């Protein structure tokens, strides 16, 4: 019991610490690729610190939902993060839910964010909520097909079991079904984390914004919670991809050396995946909103192909 609590605490600390770093790394890398110097690697930490100390303005039209939402976003993200294997093949709270619970917990956070977007009465908020719910709904089946492909391979929806099964067959990730499922999940990752070509995380007050439009009215500590929660959500979706498809370096149990090597591998793999995201972001232009369903249809098709190819291999 004590041990489990310690593991949960360690993973919680890592989640809170690594998430802003990944955002900072992606921003920095993107800037370098666009021949800009960009903000420092640790800028997100400074931003969070600054926001936490700032005062905040609550819109007069907003109800209690507006104040409750940042907590929901933050808490569901860290709880989902504790259900995903991070530095060991075991996740601390794996018993409380597997991959389906992770997806639905993130869904709860999104549900509340979308309501908060409508709560202020600003038309930007409604616009963001409407688009976010549409895109996430269309991303859902693709995500589920890819997840099912992995879950069927492991015969379980528990992420610890999935990762252990993947660790067991080291080079399994080169199988066509795995590669197709990876591609599908990668597209979903782009859509869910609001990156180009689906959404642009770097814009404020543009008519094309989606996620930013919903949280436009937030400021101060609430904004910090939402931003941090968003960074953790991005991190855990990346971990989902990394640890289910490239499980090397993870040990089956928790041990001090295992955790250290696991962490080193995790950071390396996160860096590699971030590079892929940055490449996609810099080489693509943002899509029109009504082209996004096509992208997600591609993801769905890839997921269906992944499933079909489990027949062949």
């Amino acid at each position, binding site marked *: 019991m004590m041990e489990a609590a310690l593991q949960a605490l360690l993973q919680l600390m890592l989640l809170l610490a690594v998430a802003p770093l990944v955002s900072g790394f992606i921003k920095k890398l993107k800037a370098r690729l666009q021949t800009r110097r960009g903000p420092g690697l640790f800028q997100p930490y400074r931003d969070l610190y600054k926001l*936490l*100390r700032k*005062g905040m*303005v609550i*819109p*007069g*039209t907003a*109800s209690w939902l507006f104040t409750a939402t940042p907590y929901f976003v933050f*808490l*569901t993200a*860290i*709880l989902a993060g504790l259900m995903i294997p991070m530095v060991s093949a075991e996740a601390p*709270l*794996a*018993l*409380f*839910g*597997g991959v*389906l*619970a992770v997806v*639905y917990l993130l*869904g*709860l956070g999104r*549900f509340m964010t*979308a*309501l908060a*977007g*409508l*709560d*202020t*009465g*600003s*038309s*930007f*908020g*409604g*616009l963001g909520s*409407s688009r976010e*719910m*549409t895109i*996430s*709904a269309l991303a*859902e*089946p693709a995500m*589920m*097909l890819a997840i*099912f*492909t992995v*879950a*069927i391979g492991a015969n*379980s*929806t*528990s992420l610890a*079991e999935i990762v252990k099964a993947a660790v067991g067959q080291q080079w399994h990730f080169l199988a066509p079904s795995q590669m197709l499922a990876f591609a599908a999940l990668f597209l979903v990752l782009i859509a869910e984390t609001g990156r180009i070509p689906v959404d642009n995380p770097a814009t404020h007050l543009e008519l094309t914004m989606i996620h930013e439009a919903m949280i436009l*009215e937030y400021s101060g*500590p609430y904004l910090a919670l939402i931003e941090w929660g968003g960074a953790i959500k991005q991190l855990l979706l990346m971990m989902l991809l990394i640890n289910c498809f490239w499980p090397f370096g993870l040990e089956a149990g928790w041990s001090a050396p295992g955790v250290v090597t696991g962490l080193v591998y995790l950071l390396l793999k996160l860096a590699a995946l971030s590079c892929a995201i940055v490449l996609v972001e810099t080489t693509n232009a943002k899509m029109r*909103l*009504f082209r996004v369903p096509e992208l997600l249809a591609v993801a769905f098709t890839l*997921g269906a192909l992944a*499933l079909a190819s489990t027949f062949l291999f």
Partner: protein
Amino acid sequence: MPAVDLLFNACLSVFLAGAVAGLVSLWRPAGARFLAFGLALCGSLLDIAASVATLAQGSTLLWNLPCGVPVFSWSVRLDPLSAYFCLALGILGAAVSIYSFGYLRDWKKPRNAGALGFFYNLLLLSLVLVFTAANAFFFLVAWEVMALATYCLVSFEHEKEETRQAGVLFLIMSHAGTGLQLIAFLLLAVAAGGLDFSSFHLLASRLPAGEQGAIFVLFFLGFGVKAGIIPIHVWLPAAHPVAPSNISALMSGIVIKAGIYGMARVFFDFFDVPPLWAGILVLAIGVVSALLGVLYALMEHDLKRLLAYHSIENIGIILIGFGAALMFHSLGHPTLAAIALIAGLYHTLNHAIFKCLLFLGAGAVLHATHTRNMEKMGGLIRKMPVTAFCFLIGAVAISGLPPLNGFVSEWLTYQALLAGFGTTQSLTRVMFPLAGALLALTAALAAACFVKAFGITFLALPRSAEAEQARETAFSMRLGMAILAVGCVVLGLGASWFLPVFDPITQQALGVRMSSALVASNGFVISAGSPRSGTISTVGIAASLLLLSIVPVLLWLAWGRRSRRTSGPVWDCGLPGLTAANEYTATAFSKPLRMIFSALYRPRREIQAEFEVSPYYPTAIRFESEIEPAFEKHLYDPIKERILALANRMRALQAGSIHAYLAYIFITLIILLLFGARG
């Protein structure tokens, strides 16, 4: 069991007394709502007690109704499956009865309350009998009483044209369904040589394949009309919204579940191992109903119609569970079939509770704002905080989000579908993950739809004077909703303690008990058959969320204490002041989906702008937008036209001459005599 016997008899008598009280109060209207609805409340509580006792003991009560009509046996059987549906009925009946005290208070004509009380009690009574009748004839009588009581309740506000039309549509379709059931029951009765359900047990599977198929399809369609499966759903979004709101809640909550009960009875009692295609059919119809149901719901801005379409969606989800259970059963996996059946049955109860809650909430809003149009609502979270909170609980539950009850049953459905992939080597197995993916799409669209329903109705600024003047509802109405909201939380968090309820049902239907496999060793974790295949714990999730809230508290203690909260205006792009006209509307909210699925909706819109100087400065704009009702236009209209054309031609028979009619009677008599002589 004498105790159950007594409770059940008392329940039936109290409902009957309630109906009589309703009739009597037509003449003495003063205490109508207290007497009729008070008795309905007592009856519901007795019904809960009887079903809980039956489920706890796993027993079966057999009893003959002392009816006085010979020939047919008026036998009643309260077995675990019946008791489960009676339990759902009792919970809903109790909550709706309490709600009705306040709901009827402001009615202009108190005499109507008596009539409503009569039909209301009659509906509850007939539902108990539908769930417990153990004889085909008795079942059909109860079914018919239920349909007629529902018809009278649907057409209660018959002053409106819309209501009358919906009532007639309901009546026609309901009877078409009953007709199909009647044929199927007759086919079974011929084979069994009797009308008792006990003689139908496992009988259908012993019949020749063709007859088996016919019986299955007839029952599926016959009960499907009541349940509202696509494409025989059109009556549902017409009839549910026009009824008084407490009745809509009961209809969407439990009356459509009579169809589900019928299917469960036929699929898992009358059939032993159904053919594989039957399961595939149910699964496919389930997926289609779920997806189209939610897609049509998204386009509604009439709050009650939106909820009615969601009933179609959820019936689809229930049928996904049932279909998977049938397929697993035919493929020889009774334990998996039991998980899928539990998923379907659990969702039946969950949907009953949260849909009833949402309809009661919609009723409260309608009561306060006098409109069903969401575009005229808004800002109600401040005027009606309790109603808003209860509606939010229902919205989270119906969207299948953790840790509430909808999540548990959807999770079980996913797990069953996933495990289904390993049950066969043929191509059929691809159906399971595909159904799972479409279920995911359905659930995500439902979440989008409830963001719209809750957000537009309750949040931001009021969009009309009525919404501005809305007041919180009466205490009893809030109490009725609160009971159901608590039900959503309890069935969510307490899922692992509730699952043993299904043991006697699966034992009876499939011969397996699942609770030891579904509840992991420490009691608060649900597993999908075995702990290895995946676990969830809604209690764990809720507790962790509470525990983790230490983190933001610590953050606040460390840095946030200096932060000051001020209230300010919303960013309005520099315009002077935000008004309700700036807000996003329900139509705008669903616009992206209307564009993306335009092949299905075929939207049509018309904009007329009047201007004096330049088209850029219009003085008035008229905007009209509608989607094509595909099923009504392409399926029902042609049928309707054929029937009308046929009726036109038959008019020649109605010559109006008494001689002709006498001749018809004579000819019929001769034909019947010839027929009789031949037999």
